[in-house]
């Protein structure tokens, strides 16, 4: 275990966070906010620089392996959330530590679950930082570090593997740094385009930026009370609905389009499965809702937005799907688990895993019926090795176990089953609002402190796809021999 290198890398990432905190600080100056806010940000930045002095010197031995990669990723995500919550506490707008940590973790993990009851009293700088954490967390802090620090060494592949979601990790370019840069460039360009589209729909500049951050990271923090509803514009709802779906697509496909491999990108099995799931879900919900709606158009719009926001694990809201019929709610609940494509900014199990799981189940069935049959599991026209298949099924198992664990802890102070179940589903899969008492029209302010702590961890574990955090907390990792 190369502890010195872990400390060094984590400190470097925290200093990167300090630089990013300069943005909300400038927002605070721009809007001429009270002195306390500026102090809150300046103080946090200063504190980070002082604390990270312990890891200032580059260690002699810089080799790290997958174990260290996992520890670096999980440790830095927890510490980023910890330090990121300080401005909220110091500014006095979220006085409680647990609340502030929950809110920041929810931001970085692009969950979008909030404990804030009234957004209108929150200052611009804090609103900005809240949404900006979505933007950073979406593509990943370590990927950002890889993109801008040229001296991240070659072992960083272990770090990137641990942070980028999905069962298989594909490098776009031979240099890791170029891969990270390309991903960020695609990400930033898409976000900028979205900002312009939102502005064209009459959304104020400040809101356009923040909502775009929330969409890009598939996070879902709003700017106004009532999320997207107050803008009262079908145009904005459609733009966001489509944008969320786009950010839920594997970024490698955008890269393929960039290098003019259109055909390969369109043929992607995961993309087709993802779009089919969206289409089927929208149709089913529309059919279910139609009797209670006056206009078909509004019905389709609400259903599309709800499906898009849930499957991409964003968590913006327009219509209150908490009051929809049970059938629609169940479909949405299931979509929470599916999530979007691997290699996107979304959470959940990921479509590719779901597809592999389903195929694997069918093959199992086939083996039962024809015991001597030879079967090969294929995905994206490539053979899936037994090891990959096993890792996907194992992931699902561990995922279920952890889900059950969080459900039990959360149930200790939950008002009812639906709230308890959906709040775990919504945080573990990084969606945001759930159903019942944590539905789109409610928030997480009322749940107990124990639940808040448990759900904060659920968010980070869910975002990092479980194993990095398990490695961090496993005694095996820290044993010397």
């Amino acid at each position, binding site marked *: 275990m190369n502890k010195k290198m872990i400390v060094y890398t984590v400190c470097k990432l925290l200093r990167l966070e300090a630089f990013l905190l300069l943005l909300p600080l400038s927002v605070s100056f721009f809007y001429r906010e009270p002195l306390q806010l500026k102090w809150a940000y300046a103080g946090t930045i200063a504190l980070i620089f002082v604390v990270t002095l312990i890891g200032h010197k580059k260690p002699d031995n810089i080799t790290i392996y*997958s174990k260290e990669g996992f520890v670096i990723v999980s440790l830095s995500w927890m510490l980023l959330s910890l330090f990121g919550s300080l401005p909220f506490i110091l500014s006095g707008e979220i006085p409680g530590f647990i609340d502030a940590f929950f809110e920041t973790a929810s931001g970085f993990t692009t969950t979008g679950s909030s404990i804030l009851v009234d957004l209108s009293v929150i200052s611009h700088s804090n609103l900005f930082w809240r949404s900006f954490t979505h933007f950073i967390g979406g593509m990943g802090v370590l990927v950002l570090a890889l993109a801008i620090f040229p001296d991240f060494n*070659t072992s960083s*592949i*272990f770090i990137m593997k641990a942070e980028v979601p999905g069962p298989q990790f594909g*490098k*776009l*370019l*031979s*240099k*890791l740094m*170029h891969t990270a840069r390309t991903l960020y460039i695609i990400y930033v360009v898409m976000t900028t385009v979205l900002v312009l589209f939102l502005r064209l729909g009459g959304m104020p500049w400040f809101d356009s930026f923040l909502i775009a951050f929330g969409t890009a990271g598939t996070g879902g923090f709003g700017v106004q009370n009532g999320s997207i509803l107050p803008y009262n514009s079908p145009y904005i709802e459609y733009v966001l609905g489509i944008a969320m779906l786009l950010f839920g697509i594997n970024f490698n496909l955008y890269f393929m389009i960039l290098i003019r491999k259109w055909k390969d990108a369109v043929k992607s099995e995961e993309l087709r499965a993802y779009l089919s799931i969206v289409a089927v879900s929208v149709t089913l919900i529309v059919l279910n809702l139609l009797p209670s709606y006056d206009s078909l158009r509004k019905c389709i719009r609400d259903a599309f937005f709800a499906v898009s926001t849930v499957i991409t694990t964003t968590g913006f809201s327009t219509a209150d799907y908490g009051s929809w019929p049970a059938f629609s709610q169940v479909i949405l609940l299931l979509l929470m688990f599916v999530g979007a494509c691997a290699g996107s900014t979304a959470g959940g199990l990921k479509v590719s895993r779901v597809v592999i799981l389903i195929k694997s189940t069918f093959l199992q069935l086939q083996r039962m019926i024809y015991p001597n049959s030879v079967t090969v599991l294929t995905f994206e026209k490539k053979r899936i*090795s037994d090891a990959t298949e096993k890792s996907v099924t194992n992931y699902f198992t561990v995922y279920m176990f952890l889900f059950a664990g969080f459900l039990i802890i959360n149930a200790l102070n939950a008002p009812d089953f639906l709230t308890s179940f959906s709040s775990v589903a919504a945080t573990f899969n990084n969606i945001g609002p759930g159903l019942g008492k944590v539905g789109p029209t409610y928030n997480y302010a009322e749940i107990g402190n124990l639940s808040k702590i448990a759900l904060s961890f659920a968010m980070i574990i869910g975002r990092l796809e479980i194993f990095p955090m398990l490695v961090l907390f496993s005694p095996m990792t820290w044993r010397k021999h």
Partner: protein
Amino acid sequence: MKIVIAGGGKVGEALCTDLSAEGYDVILIEVIEERLTKLIEKADITGLVGNGASIKAQLEVGVDTSDVFISVTNSDELNIISAIIARKLGAQHTIARVRNPEYFVNMNFVRDELGITFMINPELVSARDIMTMLRFPYAYDVESFFRGVVNIVEVEIEEDSFLNGKMLQDLNTSDEKVLVCIVDRNHEVFIPNGQFVLQAKDRIYLTGSEEAIHEFWCVKKSPNKRVRSVMIVGGSRISHYLIEKLIKKNIKVKLIEINTKIAEEFSFNFPEITVINGDGTDQDLLREEGISSYDAVVSMTGIDEENMILSMFSHSLNVQKTITKINRKMLMPILDKIGLDSVITPKKVISDLIIRFVRSEGSTKSSKVETLHRFLENRVESLEFIIDGNSRALNIPLKDLKTIPNLLIACILREGQLIFPGGQDVILEGDRVLIITTKKYLDRFDEILVS
């Protein structure tokens, strides 16, 4: 610069790690998936599972837009075919590892008609390197520059050496023909200046012509200037090439080979040498064949451990020079501890050669790297440049030239004349300049200047 490598064996692995560390974009085509995954974790490269000779695989990794294609799978024919295809698809340069000497005839045809930039034979190159080592029997390591005019040799200062305690500027002030360019003291590397004081146990690297180095170093130990007899254990391919070269130099050779058929073959091919059929690890046999009377023992069996023990045994009998073939790189660090220093690792030999080629091709702008050698676990590099007219270092006295730290301009070859430059000397267009530096990955001469 984009480099595609086919084959992720030992050489492929060394190429991937070294070339990607130098900043090139490396893509590997390898048949075995696990091997590829392992290498992607180890080096900053990307890859494809497939056959390097398939057009589909080559197109998928973009050989058509690549600068260098290197085929180092274990099959000669596959390497040749892959290189031809790569060239036809549009790769700028193609390199193929080819072992069979039958393919090594008519190199012009290979280059012009087949389009293979060059074929390398690891055994042949290794044999050449062993020959260089034998030219300096007292040295641990030897590298040649300026087509052999200048050598860098590594020697150790002993307690009773005339160099012990000497300050560098006090050495042969009259005519500087030999230069101490690197000092390795307890694994700390120095590029010394005139005030540097040498100590016993220092490993020093001497630069100069062959004659000058012999004269400088062998002031007291005149008897063993040259190797006149060599015992080779193991009739490998390298031995074959080596014996050819030794015979040309009129050096007495005795070969010990355990396999009767191979022994007979060697005897048939080389009537000039003595071939013994027997076990090279049998110490009685070695004594009987008079191992201690040979100037050098070269251990060439197929087993690393056997070679190591053989060399240790020869050392104990005071054979002056032992050369050990080691295939596995990970054994290198312990060799130093047990006193074996002249080691030949074929895969390292050819990966160094390819890297040198790539680097000299990579710097097309000005003043290309001609040759490159690395010392002391790659901590020091020596590079040979040909200076072109655009260099900013032209016509400036060296004492006024602001260069990066830890850098030495060791010597200049100008119109066949070897110059060890002083502060007043200048660099002219067309000079061949040898520099020694701890800065890595230089690929243009002007990078030595402080910008």
